């Protein structure tokens, strides 16, 4: 089948146009065509959450998402979530709380946490755990990850840092 041209918004201020064969995943486009490798590939079957991105603010698994499905929509990757200067409060909280070991699951964790805090500025521990239910960390660092997201919520809630979007 012939390739098609798909356009979507990347972050807040960039429109991208890609030519893809049918059923090419958003993950493949981000990593192999656009060179945006913060979006990881742990399983390519929707099992690990390391490829999570936001589509119109909602967390989605880019490994299962045909790029045609995001045509005209806004895709937020970890690259576009990261401020030009400094770090997002969630990123800072992960560093402060040592919420990673190998770092491979971290991009997906931060993305999912960003969506959670966007919807709920003061989530309970259970809310955080529920939000992370689709993200696997094999270094078994869930405890510090949950704590870091809670700490980030407090930082944002206290107005110490304006959440950059």
């Amino acid at each position: 089948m012939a390739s098609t041209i798909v356009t979507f918004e990347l972050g807040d201020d960039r429109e991208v146009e890609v030519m893809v064969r049918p059923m090419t995943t958003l993950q493949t486009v981000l990593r192999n065509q656009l060179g945006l490798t913060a979006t990881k590939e742990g399983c390519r079957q929707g099992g690990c959450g390391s490829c999570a991105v936001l589509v119109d603010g909602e967390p989605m698994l880019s490994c299962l998402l045909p790029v045609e499905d995001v045509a005209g929509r806004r895709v937020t990757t970890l690259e576009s979530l990261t401020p030009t200067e400094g770090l997002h409060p969630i990123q800072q909280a992960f560093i402060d709380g040592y919420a990673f070991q190998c770092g491979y699951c971290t991009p997906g964790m931060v993305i999912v946490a960003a969506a959670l805090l966007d919807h709920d500025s003061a989530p309970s521990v259970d809310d955080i755990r529920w939000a992370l239910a689709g993200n696997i960390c094999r270094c078994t660092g869930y405890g510090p990850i949950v704590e870091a997201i809670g700490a980030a919520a407090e930082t944002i809630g206290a107005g110490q840092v304006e959440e950059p979007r």
Partner: protein
Amino acid sequence: MNDPLNVVGRSVERSDGIGHVTGRTVFASDHVVPGMLHLKMVRSPLHHARIRGIDTSDAERVPGFVRALTAADVPHNRYTILGLIGVEPEEEFVLAEERVRFKGEAMVAIVAETEEAAYEAVAKVHLDLEELPAVFDVEEALKPGAPVVTHWGNNTFMYEGHPCRRVRLGDVEAAFARADHIVEGVYDTSPIEHAPTETTGCIAVPEANGRYTVYTNTQALYFSLDNTSIILQVPGNQLHFVGGTVGGGFGGKVDVIVEPIATLAAMKTNRPVRYVYSRAEEMQVSSTRSAWRIYLKDGVTADGHIIARKVTSYADSGAYSRQTPYALTKHAANAAGPYAIPNVSIDAYCVYTNRQPTSAMRGFGVTMASFALEVQMDKIAELVGLDPWTIRFLNAYHDGDMKPHRKLAEDATLIETMQAAAALVGHDLAPDLKAMTSAPRGRRGEESGRP
């Protein structure tokens, strides 16, 4: 106080932290190289089979097909990872020749312009296999008439001419005869897949200067480089391995599996080649922790002293041994536990079966011994009417005790560790246990300068 080198008691930010939280850390498979080819593997669909023929003609007609590699293309196809430290014999094949010994064994490497083309060509390689009887249990594999997995005729790794790693101290049979109780147990553990979030993989890139840059997520960069040098019969200085960033390893990325064949493919095509395991390959093909079966027989006095321990252990190495022979040696040195037992006999077998090969994983060899031994200790405690703490304090080794492999215990800390653990869990130890130290027997702690 401002000494930057004095970090004890202070939190220090991780140097890789910003890279990890922003996704700027570059993992091996994050390298996107122009003109990159993709390697996918044709794998054995059978547990054990003789290879009668391999036909790649249909695969070669797939649009995007570039090259197929078989055993004949690999300069030094039979190797053993631990050959670098003198372990013999060479026993594993980069690509299968004559026989396949486990389901999933690598047979034909297909290199193509796209992943899709590589997968399609893999599906079109025709294998002519004669299925052979297979064996999946360590003790079945040691019986006369069992299917032979190895190329040397029996199913054990040979330790200096012996089918097992042996440790002997004192006379266990004499001690069993005078013991008040004999406590026996058999303990089985399962294979465990490390399942790192980042699958095993590498990208091999031919450079203008004739060298090959290999971006890899190996946990053992020089192990991988040196084995690749041997397998490809090229000097090490033609290979430039770039690594150190591992998306989860846990011992699962110390085997040298993807780099030699990816580098060979780069040499044969003069193109960059990417070979990254799928999740299914990571689970079903990459090494796991071995399954173990451990038989224990202990001679115990009425007051709870273990006077004899006999251990017979079988590790299921799978079809190839990789780092498992080393695990057995480590196991044999630890299989009596951190206890002072005057009579010990240990036979530890590294057994070949037709299962997925096994290798390193966190404490391999020792972890499984600890599982068996500590369950056994609880059984003994119950039998002689002591609580689980007391039985361990009573038998714990002290500095200066002789270990089964004829090394004196030094810096023994089991007693102090158990005291600290008891305090942490709020368990009030009896005064005599609280007062114990690991100081050499017959002397008080203060005399030896220990707390």
